């Protein structure tokens, strides 16, 4: 296993510090959802795994501070998003209709798009969606519902007068 070179940004700890138990417990809960999320964004298993590993290392380096935050899962999720942003998605792949619709929703109501993705593509329960976005569960449900209405309208537009046969 290759070791990372020490850099000026990440001072090398003098002693090997074992991962704290809480960190392991945290990733026992979030590893699979994070992996699904990265795979959804990057559409490549190996790249998604690399992105989640990178995320985990960044989280571990700042674990004490993250744990002291009011919403550690939301901080971890923002780190995941930043890390995934730095990875290149698979090129030359046409987005599916649902991806196109979600991208359109992202431009108008980013929280609705994230709620929809986390609830219906990553298949997280609402309390987990709320934890990752640092919102309450009712708002997560409401945003998901509104996002679903947008998708319905986009994917199944009502017939117009022109398209209705006489």
């Amino acid at each position, binding site marked *: *296993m290759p*070791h*990372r*070179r*020490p*850099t*000026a940004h990440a*001072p*090398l*700890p*003098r*002693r*090997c*510090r*074992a*991962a704290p138990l809480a960190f*392991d417990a945290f*990733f*026992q809960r979030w*590893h*699979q959802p994070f*992996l*699904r999320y*990265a*795979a*959804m964004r990057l*559409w*490549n*298993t190996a790249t*998604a*795994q690399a992105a*989640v*590993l990178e995320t*985990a*290392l960044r989280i*571990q*380096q700042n674990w004490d501070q993250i744990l002291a935050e009011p919403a550690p899962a939301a901080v971890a999720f923002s780190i995941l998003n930043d890390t995934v942003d730095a990875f290149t998605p698979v090129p030359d792949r046409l987005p*599916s*209709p*649902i991806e196109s619709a979600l991208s359109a929703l992202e431009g108008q109501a980013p929280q609705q798009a994230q709620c*929809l993705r986390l609830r*219906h*593509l*990553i*298949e997280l329960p609402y309390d987990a969606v709320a934890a990752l976005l640092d919102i309450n569960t009712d708002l997560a449900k409401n945003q998901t519902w509104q996002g*679903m209405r947008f*998708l*319905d309208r986009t*994917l*199944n537009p009502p017939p117009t007068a022109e398209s209705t046969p006489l």
Partner: protein
Amino acid sequence: MTTEEILRREARHLDRHANTDTDAFLENVALMAAPNPVIMSLPEHHLAALTAGPAVPARRDHHLQLAAQR
């Protein structure tokens, strides 16, 4: 096909990408985070020099300069 059905189909597609053993993943994280024992056995001032600056890019630049002079 309803919107829910389309979303479920997309979610099933993601299953193929994500099903990695979490315990193995955590072992990997611990290995990657652990400092190299060879580097850690270096004296303190060597360690400080290692962490101080971009040694590799500087060396690479030096080699590039040498290559340009040839």
